[in-house]
């Protein structure tokens, strides 16, 4: 909200003006949403059965229809590596891979993933056997508080695959030429992952190193 006269806005106006923006903002609605853990299905609740594969393991769940993929991972499967930030697709902390593509797990219903193959941060690597991207984030200090990190790492891995697959971005100069790794490309493609600590330069360094290794 960089309105030249924003300092004249009341607090209420400011909350209103930021509520629909793309930044992760905690208005009262959001905070309430983020705190409410998904309840287990109760009698009288509309539920559905869904089966998908998470990090190589088949999971069959009876879920309240309202359960997001994020809540199913965290609350039902106790895979708490995937984080809930804004719960509105604005911050990227909930990024996971579904059928090889990164998505915001907070904006997807679990019951819509029948048969999906899901990879979370726990499936990318373990403390003993880290994924190269995890190693690079540690080496380059690609985080401070660490809350956005699982989402950042899942997104980073997907970004390099997207570049390899020839998917263009907003900063790709020639839409008909092969896509390449550059700092600009990484920054643009990672813009769906917000880091409140501002570890961006180190995140870019980590991704760049992994891309070099892969090339």
């Amino acid at each position, binding site marked *: 909200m960089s309105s030249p006269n924003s300092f004249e806005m009341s607090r209420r*106006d400011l909350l209103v003006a930021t509520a*629909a923006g793309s930044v992760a903002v905690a208005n009262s609605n959001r905070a309430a949403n983020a705190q409410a853990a998904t309840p287990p299905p109760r009698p009288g609740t509309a539920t559905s059965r869904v089966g998908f594969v998470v990090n190589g393991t088949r999971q069959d769940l009876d879920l309240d229809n309202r359960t997001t993929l994020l809540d199913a991972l965290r609350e039902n499967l106790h895979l708490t590596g995937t984080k809930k930030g804004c719960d509105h697709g604005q911050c990227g902390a909930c990024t996971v891979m579904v059928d090889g593509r990164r998505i915001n797990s907070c904006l997807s219903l679990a019951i819509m993933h029948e048969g999906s193959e899901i990879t979370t941060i726990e499936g990318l690597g373990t403390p003993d056997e880290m994924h190269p991207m995890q190693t690079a984030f540690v080496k380059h200090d690609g985080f401070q508080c660490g809350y956005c990190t699982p989402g950042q790492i899942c997104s980073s891995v997907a970004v390099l695959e997207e570049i390899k697959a020839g998917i263009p971005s907003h900063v790709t100069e020639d839409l008909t030429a092969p896509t390449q790794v550059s700092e600009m490309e990484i920054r643009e493609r990672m813009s769906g992952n917000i880091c409140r600590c501002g570890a961006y330069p180190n995140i870019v360094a980590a991704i760049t190193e992994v891309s070099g290794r892969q090339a």
Partner: protein
Amino acid sequence: MKQFTYERAASPAEAASKAANNQNAKFIAGGTNLLDLMKLEIESPTHLIDVNGLDLDKIEQSENGGVRIGALVRNTDLASDERIRRDYGVLSRALLAGASGQLRNKATTAGNLLQRTRCPYFYDTAQPCNKRKPGSGCSAIGGVTRQLGVIGVSDACIATHPGDMAIAMRALDATVETVKPDGATRAIPIADFHKLPGDTPEIETTLERGEVITAVTLPAPVGGKHVYRKVRDRASYAFALVSVAAIIQPDGTGRVAVGGVAPKPWRVEEAEADLPQGSKAVMAKVFAGAKPTEENSFKVTLAERTLAGILEETKG
């Protein structure tokens, strides 16, 4: 979020007839807009019809030399398609300027067309909003209007269509194909697809209850240089303050559609004859009758300068 029942539809006609029988049913595609609004209880469908299994995820050559884009084609796949990149670059560019990589992987062609406004008061359920609650009043009028519309707006609502994709589709003269619950099909020119608010801002498109979007078609390529310029508060991952989709031919003629300024993609064909005279002449006609507020009148100037930049870039 309110409770809802859920089912998957197997064909567009089946989806349409299922929805026609239930006033509180909604289709769900990528879910990236609908679920967001359901969490805030701005939308509270009691039944969701999942359209992801409708086999509408292909981009095909059409008989007239154009392309037919299935309603379920993801934004990432549409932006990356070889034909779209080569012959309809403005569309590829508009898609890539929108949302984030994660969201584009889920967002579909139909869902993107139907995404709802980002008016901050529409999102604040504590305040009156004619679009959210017909007849309750408009909090934006007299409120903070920086992001809101300057043209095509009414005394009941001044919100904008927030998307990027539709702006490029307007410049490309796209057509929206649908199936109605009785099985009848329609082809709606994109110019007629979104409605101006008038007294009924809650009605945003010409779609009838239960009508399913099956595809968007583009006519044969028109050549020219394709540009989509989006001006926003951040360099990435933000909605447009103003955006301009332009196709400029070597002789200086072309097409211009503007986003971020109106309840629908804003294009005034008669203004395009003035392209050789420059941006000021074109935008004077595009914004004829505009009603900006003190806070958002900058959008008119911004649109004019954005087009000026495009004309400079595409010169020669």
